[in-house]
């Protein structure tokens, strides 16, 4: 191993050039690194959307969802298939194993989708895959501002669909642009049923006539004077006048025109979503979805440039106004970590200067930071990781640790140089000094890397969130190891000089001062070992007392900087009503002086991003610059103001959320309760009844709280059940009746009008008065083959019922969820008891089964994994220590540092009022490593002194005093490197703060203990093979 140093010192130029290459390559890698706000925690899934206009959930499930699900069975790598059948929309989510290539997944899905298409009845919709994107793909939302007020919502929507969308979709990295709001223009033929009767026509005739009179054809060519003339016949209707002039019937040579039986007008298509603004009314809006894996910041930049360009093409007074841009959080979260990174570097450099007392050694140590960072960035690029809050955060955390190896190395070189014989060549001294500390450094850094092992086993959201951090820490530490081993000796040789005073040069003033203070204390501790034991026990007791007082939370909420108010209204609400209620809410919010604009999306627009029903509204609250707030920059206060002003909205649930948080939650579709019992079965009514009974049983189990059965019903339906007997009596077919219902009430598309390349549907339907109420629907006349007309009420029973709002399925089965939380008892025993009670009291119908899930299962799985991984990690650390020291006692002594370090972390959390959370756990994990590292540095030297024949007590004191500088330096650099994260207030800082708190707190206790307890207890744990 020591050969490496020799090797490096002999090829100094190569090493210098190599260093430069790494730094330059790192810089270019950074430029190319995809930049995201946060690690993408979206599951690896392919979504299949099918719109089936006008179909109720039951039909959607039967005709669309089921065939799609069935086709997807047995795909490689599928974890589960979950589906939601809504009114008019089927969404099938196919969750793949993490790590599978998204394009592979889409390909296998797409192959099977062809199969599914064949199974779906004609006219029931065409399934298509969602955008190649993730929950973080919604990078920019905009609305169209019409300052002139002269453009209708149809016009604006046409501009959106045919100008803006087309242009934005050409931007590289944009996979989809989806429109919402306004009206999709269509040509509506509103037929008066009385006129049909008058002229003895049926709706079917009208539809056929329109289709037959709206055509362009080509007829090859003719030759004329050696030229070819292409023959084409143009018969496409170009507008309302052409449609009006279509002859639907001729009686005795007298034509009946379409205008005689119907009103032809331009209108809006049926919609399941609108976009409103500022409580004033509707706007037309769009959202840009970025391609999976593309660089958010560059895509957004390109989109912005394109928007600028498109704005120039739009009619006078119409402008694209972005109202949500992911760029803002990308920029601010990257800014948060970058500034923490830079501040960290400066702080660390300052510490070095003070402690090293020299410019040159400081430079050598400081140089390890850019090298390690760049090393990590090159590796990130190669591994396909993105730069985000977490991955860059990992670098910020590691700053203080990156220098540790080099500090020990340089400190040793510095000391050795000072103490060496002036006649010895400098290169020899450097080599000797380097080789001395090489092993402990390598082991210490290896331990820090190993310590992050448990993080790699995290699964799901936490895994995706914290793995990038673990990766970058590990990578940066690896870089720092390389630097310490290869570069540090070389740069040390190139830059460091013997002190001018010759042999025995003095250490910097500060160190001498500290040593003077430290010496008596350490002497005291070495003499009275009980003092050390007492101190350690006392601290551990404090830790044990404080720990239970810590609250616990999952992960602190990331502040995205954009506030979204989500309104949930009654499931049966009509779009017009939800729009009315939303406008009321918007007007309330507009009263807040800090609010600049409120833009709300209700329901869903073009299919692909959202599948929200019309009872759900997402209000984007756009605020004035933070400085103008009544409490500048205080987002929490702002949120409270918003809550207050929104106040009580009858019939509406409102909660504050954030754009990315919301989208990701939607994709995860998890149950946010500790326990979820899923009851699988076929019959919706039986499911509901059984679920209610299960809920009643669970409710009685001690510890149960918030027991709830998911609501499936609540949406009224007008159920038209044809009476087969009546129908046959009139010589009709069932389909004759249903076609009339479909076309008259729902409308039927019969061709399209082309305006240039823009294509607008022609929709034939009864006029509103003849279909928009139950009485009118009962009067719809169906024509029998013999020409008589029969009202619908005579052919079918028509009744109002309450139907399901949606049907959810998992792995091909319908299910209902019963969720509950558990208080004051252990969940495991609760589940056992509840399960036993359910088995005893409820006789599940044949084909019905229950499964237990919820956060509790995730938690159990995580606990199980950690129960294995944490001891293994400790084992590896112990093994590494043992390999390094070849002494069990030494190993134990160093491991003793760990609990002492943890105490500091616990106290720091408690004092700062933070909770135990995943990032705090990550902090504790980091502490493991740092504490061990500190111990190693000291124990190594103590062993060396012992081997040199110094008596153990004297060695303890002398070693501790001499190692004061490196121990303090590594501790202080690590702590100071984290201070910027601790104090940062920018986007994403809330996630890093617990981590920084824990490490800094732990460092304080662990450093004190390293310096006092280890020398004191060393005698009991000294290496065995040396007789003192």
């Amino acid at each position: 191993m020591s050969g490496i140093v020799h090797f490096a010192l002999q090829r100094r130029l190569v090493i210098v050039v190599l260093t430069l290459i790494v730094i330059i390559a790192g810089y270019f890698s950074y430029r190319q690194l995809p930049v995201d706000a946060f690690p993408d925690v979206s599951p690896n899934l392919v979504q299949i959307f099918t719109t089936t206009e006008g179909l109720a959930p039951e039909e959607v499930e039967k005709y669309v969802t089921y065939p799609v699900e069935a086709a997807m069975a047995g795909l490689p790598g599928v974890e589960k298939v979950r589906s939601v059948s809504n009114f008019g929309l089927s969404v099938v989510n196919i969750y793949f194993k993490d790590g599978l290539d998204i394009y592979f997944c889409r390909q296998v899905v797409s192959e099977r989708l062809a199969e599914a298409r064949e199974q779906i009845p004609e006219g029931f919709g065409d399934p298509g895959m969602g955008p190649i994107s993730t929950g973080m793909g919604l990078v920019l939302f905009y609305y169209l501002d019409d300052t002139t007020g002269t453009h209708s919502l149809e016009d604006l929507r046409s501009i959106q669909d045919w100008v803006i969308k087309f242009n934005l979709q050409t931007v590289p990295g944009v996979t989809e642009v989806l429109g919402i709001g306004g009206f999709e223009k269509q040509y509506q033929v509103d037929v008066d049923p009385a006129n049909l009767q008058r002229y003895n026509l049926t709706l079917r005739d009208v539809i056929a006539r329109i289709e037959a009179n709206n055509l362009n054809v080509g007829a090859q060519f003719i030759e004329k004077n050696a030229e070819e003339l292409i023959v084409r016949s143009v018969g496409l209707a170009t507008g309302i006048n052409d449609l009006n002039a279509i002859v639907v019937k001729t009686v005795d040579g007298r034509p009946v025109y379409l205008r005689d039986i119907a009103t032809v007008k331009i209108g809006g298509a049926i919609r399941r979503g609108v976009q409103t603004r500022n409580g004033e009314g509707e706007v037309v809006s769009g959202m840009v979805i970025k391609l999976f894996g593309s660089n958010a910041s560059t895509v957004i930049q390109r989109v912005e440039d394109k928007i600028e360009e498109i704005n120039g093409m739009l009619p006078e007074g119409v402008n694209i106004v972005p109202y949500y841009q992911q760029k803002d959080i990308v920029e601010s979260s990257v800014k948060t970590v970058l500034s923490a990174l830079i501040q960290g570097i400066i702080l660390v450099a300052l510490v070095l200067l003070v402690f090293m007392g020299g410019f040159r050694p400081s430079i050598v140590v400081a140089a390890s930071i850019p090298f390690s960072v760049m090393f990590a960035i090159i590796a990130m690029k190669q591994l396909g990781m993105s730069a985000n809050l977490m991955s860059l955060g990992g670098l910020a955390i590691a700053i203080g640790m990156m220098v540790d190896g080099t500090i020990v190395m340089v400190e040793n070189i510095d000391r050795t140089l000072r103490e060496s014989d002036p006649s010895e060549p400098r290169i020899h001294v450097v080599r000797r000094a380097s080789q001395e500390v090489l092993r402990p450094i390598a082991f210490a850094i290896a331990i820090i890397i190993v310590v992050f092992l448990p993080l790699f086993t995290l699964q799901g959201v936490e895994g995706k969130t914290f793995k990038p951090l673990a990766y970058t820490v590990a990578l940066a530490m690896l870089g720092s190891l390389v630097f310490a081993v290869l570069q540090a000796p070389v740069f040390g040789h190139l830059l460091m000089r013997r002190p001018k005073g010759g042999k025995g040069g003095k250490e910097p003033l500060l160190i001498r001062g500290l040593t003077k203070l430290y010496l008596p204390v350490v002497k005291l501790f070495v003499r009275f070992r009980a003092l050390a034991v007492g101190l350690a026990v006392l601290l551990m007791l404090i830790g044990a007392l404080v720990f239970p007082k810590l609250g616990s939370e999952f992960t602190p909420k990331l502040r995205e900087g954009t506030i979204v108010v989500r309104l949930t209204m009654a499931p049966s609400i009509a779009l017009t009503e939800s729009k009315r209620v939303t406008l009321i809410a918007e007007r309330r919010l507009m009263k807040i002086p800090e609010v600049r604009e409120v833009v709300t999306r209700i329901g869903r627009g073009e299919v692909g991003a959202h599948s929200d029903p019309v009872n759900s509204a997402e209000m984007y609250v756009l605020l004035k610059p933070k400085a103008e707030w009544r409490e500048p920059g205080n987002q929490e206060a702002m949120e409270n103001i918003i809550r207050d002003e929104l106040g009580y909205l009858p019939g509406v649930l409102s909660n504050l959320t954030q754009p990315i948080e919301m989208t990701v939650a939607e994709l995860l579709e998890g149950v946010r309760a500790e326990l979820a019992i899923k009851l699988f079965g076929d019959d919706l009514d039986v499911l509901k009844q059984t679920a209610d009974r299960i809920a009643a049983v669970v409710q009685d189990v001690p510890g149960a709280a918030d027991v709830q059965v998911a609501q499936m019903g609540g949406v009224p339906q007008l159920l038209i059940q044809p009476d087969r007997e009546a129908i046959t009596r009139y010589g009709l077919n069932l389909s004759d009746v249903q076609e009339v219902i479909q076309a008259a009430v729902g409308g039927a598309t019969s061709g399209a009008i082309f305006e240039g390349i823009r294509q607008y549907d022609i929709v034939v339907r009864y006029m509103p008065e003849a279909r928009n109420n139950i009485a009118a629907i009962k009067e719809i006349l169906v024509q029998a083959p013999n020409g008589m007309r029969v009202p619908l009420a005579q052919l079918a029973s028509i009744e109002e019922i309450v139907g399901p709002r949606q049907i959810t399925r998992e792995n091909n089965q319908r299910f209902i969820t019963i969720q509950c939380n558990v208080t004051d008892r252990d969940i495991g025993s609760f589940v056992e008891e509840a399960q036993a009670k359910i088995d005893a009291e409820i006789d599940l119908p044949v084909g019905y089964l229950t499964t237990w899930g919820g956060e509790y299962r995730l938690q159990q799985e995580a606990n199980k994994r950690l129960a294995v991984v944490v001891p293994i990690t400790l084992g590896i650390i112990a093994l590494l220590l043992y390999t390094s020291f070849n002494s069990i006692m030494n190993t134990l002594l160093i491991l003793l540092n760990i609990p002492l370090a943890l105490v500091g972390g616990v106290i720091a959390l408690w004092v700062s009022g933070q909770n135990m959370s995943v990032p705090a756990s990550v902090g504790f994990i980091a502490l493991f490593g740092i504490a061990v590292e500190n111990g190693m540095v000291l124990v190594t030297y103590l062993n060396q002194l012992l081997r040199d024949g110094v008596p153990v007590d004297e060695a303890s004191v002398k070693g501790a005093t001499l190692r004061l500088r490196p121990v303090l330096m590594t501790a202080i650099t690590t702590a100071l490197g984290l201070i910027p994260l601790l104090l940062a207030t920018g986007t994403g800082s809330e996630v890093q703060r617990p981590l920084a708190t824990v490490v800094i707190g732990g460092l304080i206790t662990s450093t004190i203990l390293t310096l006092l307890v280890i020398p004191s207890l060393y005698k009991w744990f000294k290496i065995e093979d040396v007789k003192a």
Partner: protein
Amino acid sequence: MKIIYLMMGLACGVGGVTAEEQGHKEHEEEAIQLSPEVLKEFGIELATAAGGTLTMETVLPGEIQINQDRLAHVVPRYPGVVLEVKKNIGDPVKKGEVVAILEGNDSLTPYPLKAMVDGVVTDKHITLGESLQTDRSIYSIADLSDVWVNVTLYQKDLARVRKGQTVTVSGGEHLEPAQGVIDYVSPTLDERTRTGYARVVLPNPDGTWKPGMFITAEVQIGTEAAQVVIPLTALQTLEEGISVFVETDQGFKPRHVKLGHANRTQVEVLSGLKAGERYVSKGAFTLKAELDRGEMNSGHSH
């Protein structure tokens, strides 16, 4: 050892659950309180329950026909050749007015054909010089001062439509609707179409209603005097059935109501709401939604 602690810590960190607010499912007899401002903001309107008369209607298709009681045909008395055609379709004629002159085949003397009623020529089958037999009507003269409205009765309507009921006839485009009374209901159904008809004699002094027109007839199939009549907009379907929100001292409470007769806008309340009580007549959906609010956060739909 402290390692255990750490593991516990990790476990808590990884598995900790943020307790979410979870609404309870109790909406028994909970009154909803809304301030006047909120009522106004949400467009919720109140009314006092009161009695009234409900007019029930059914809408049926129909056709204008010539009043067959005021139709006269002109038929040649003797076979002969047409010497003169005096009237054309649409010409008004008086009773006794000569409409054509024929020359009898046997007598070879001209004789006049006269109208038997006042009216308008609605049909004509006569040409100059034509030889006519005595078995064919050559003129139809109808008195259009009133017309028949034949309203198609489907099987489902037969029981409800009776002689004497008032009918509002509308002919669509630019025609003022007119009112008449059913004075005849067909005793049998047409075997082919399985429909019957009800007839209204409609005065037609201006000739607005032209025979052959399709019309829509709104038949008032009954009027009911009711103790309490409320608009349909007040009704909401709740779990326990159709309900109305009533204002009480504690606030608004849903009350299950039993309904009687109804028309397109109003309904009779048989029980559940007494005259004089204040109820929500418009915007009751907001209250229904508020009642179900506790259930909305479960089984979340997105």
